[in-house]
């Protein structure tokens, strides 16, 4: 069974997608036919059929930027919660810290602090790196969670959506591929509202326009409130 409106198709697990064998993520082949694995949205191209699940835990990929929380220090690495099915490991040599004493290292990243790091290696454990230019420690601000499959929509085409939100709300925003969004300064509440709207309506086209519309509406309210005070 599938439901179709505004050009996107929603499928449930076990829905027939094609009567031939097609490659693609989120699909499987049974007796020469292609079926969906997830509850999600179908994207069809000439060569591939992909099902993007609505809601899924983050699966680490090499090169992804993720936001994580330090949980523990066990020399020579920190254990990082990256909100995935496995923990992240940040080795001391993968950071720019030139400190060899363990008691000093323990205090550089305290448990509970947040970092923005890159997934550098996927072996038996997920290794993170903070040597990249973008990597940093996130101090202050607020965290919001979005479903990892919707992060591309939060960023938008060439960052159009994220830039627009930053401009309108005056926040600094960093998005991790694992679905964690860091918001600092500005109208953080408004930014979170926008994220919630994206989360809800990610599969419907014309998203940026609708988010902008919402800002215009909410923005006016905000001004009125200020005036009343």
């Amino acid at each position, binding site marked *: *069974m*599938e*439901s179709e409106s505004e050009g996107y198709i*929603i499928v*449930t*697990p*076990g829905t027939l997608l094609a009567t031939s064998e097609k490659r693609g993520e*989120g699909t*499987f082949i*049974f007796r020469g036919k292609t*079926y969906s*694995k*997830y*509850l*999600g949205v179908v994207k069809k191209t000439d060569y591939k059929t992909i099902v993007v*699940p*609505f*809601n*899924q*835990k983050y699966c680490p990929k090499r090169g992804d930027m993720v936001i994580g929380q330090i949980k523990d220090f066990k020399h020579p690495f920190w254990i990082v919660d990256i909100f995935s*099915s*496995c*923990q992240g490991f940040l080795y001391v040599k993968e950071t720019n810290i030139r400190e060899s004493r363990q008691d000093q290292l323990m205090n550089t990243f305290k448990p509970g602090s947040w970092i923005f790091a890159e997934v550098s290696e996927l072996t038996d454990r997920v290794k993170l790196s903070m040597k990249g230019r973008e990597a940093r420690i996130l101090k202050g601000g607020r965290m919001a969670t979005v479903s990892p*499959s919707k992060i591309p929509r939060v960023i938008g085409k060439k960052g159009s959506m994220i830039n627009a939100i930053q401009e309108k709300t005056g926040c600094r925003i960093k998005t991790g591929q694992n679905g964690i969004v860091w918001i600092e300064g500005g109208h953080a509440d408004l930014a979170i509202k926008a994220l*919630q709207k994206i*989360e*809800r*309506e990610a*599969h419907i086209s014309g998203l940026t326009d609708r988010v902008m519309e919402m800002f215009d509406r909410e923005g006016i309210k905000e001004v009125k409130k200020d005036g009343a005070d």
Partner: protein
Amino acid sequence: MELIKNGIRPDGRKLGDLRELKARLKVVENSEGSAMFRMGDTIAVASVYGPMEVYPAFLEKADKAIVEVNYQMLPFSTDDRSRPGFSRRSAEISALIKRVFESAIFVEDMPRTKVLINIDILCADASTRCAAINAASLALAAAGIPMKDMVASCAVGKVDGQTVLDVAGAEDTEGEVDMPIAYLPLTEEVLLLQMDGIIEKEEFTNMTAMAIEGCRKIHDFQKGILLEQGTSVEEEETQ
């Protein structure tokens, strides 16, 4: 005592009718996916967590995910208060449901992880394991766990010498045979089949066919619920 009169059962259903079905997604906020499934007076709530790391680590499988199921009847679910906590019966049904979902989920897609399914029976009126399986497959789909198809499950029974679908109430206690079935419509596999009582071989074939018919109806209902409620957050939460 005669339970079936002129093909009408104690609760007014015909022989091949299911009870009224109701379902709701997103009932447990903190879980990855959750669902409530109701068949008549039997209510099951399932919540799915994971895929997550396996503790203790020796249970971990290098090539596939492990599935853990905790089935539990809450103290107020039956007429007499049932003792809370795990019993022999709950351990048995948990193991049973675990095997059902191990063959429906793509466990090889998520090596070294665990999928945890917690099922609570809020109200029990026959075929709780069927309601539990139906609720769990909705919750798994909502949680984004890769699976072949939703597993549908329902029971058939023999009451007063007649085959009835979806046994309930007095039929369960007075009836001769009770047979729950879990069915995977896509591959046409029967994942669970239990039976108590004695029947002829021919009757058994008929009952299986009837149960599969019922499972198909439930499967259609599950799909409808997922498309209706699983696609976006309901409007209530925004206001």
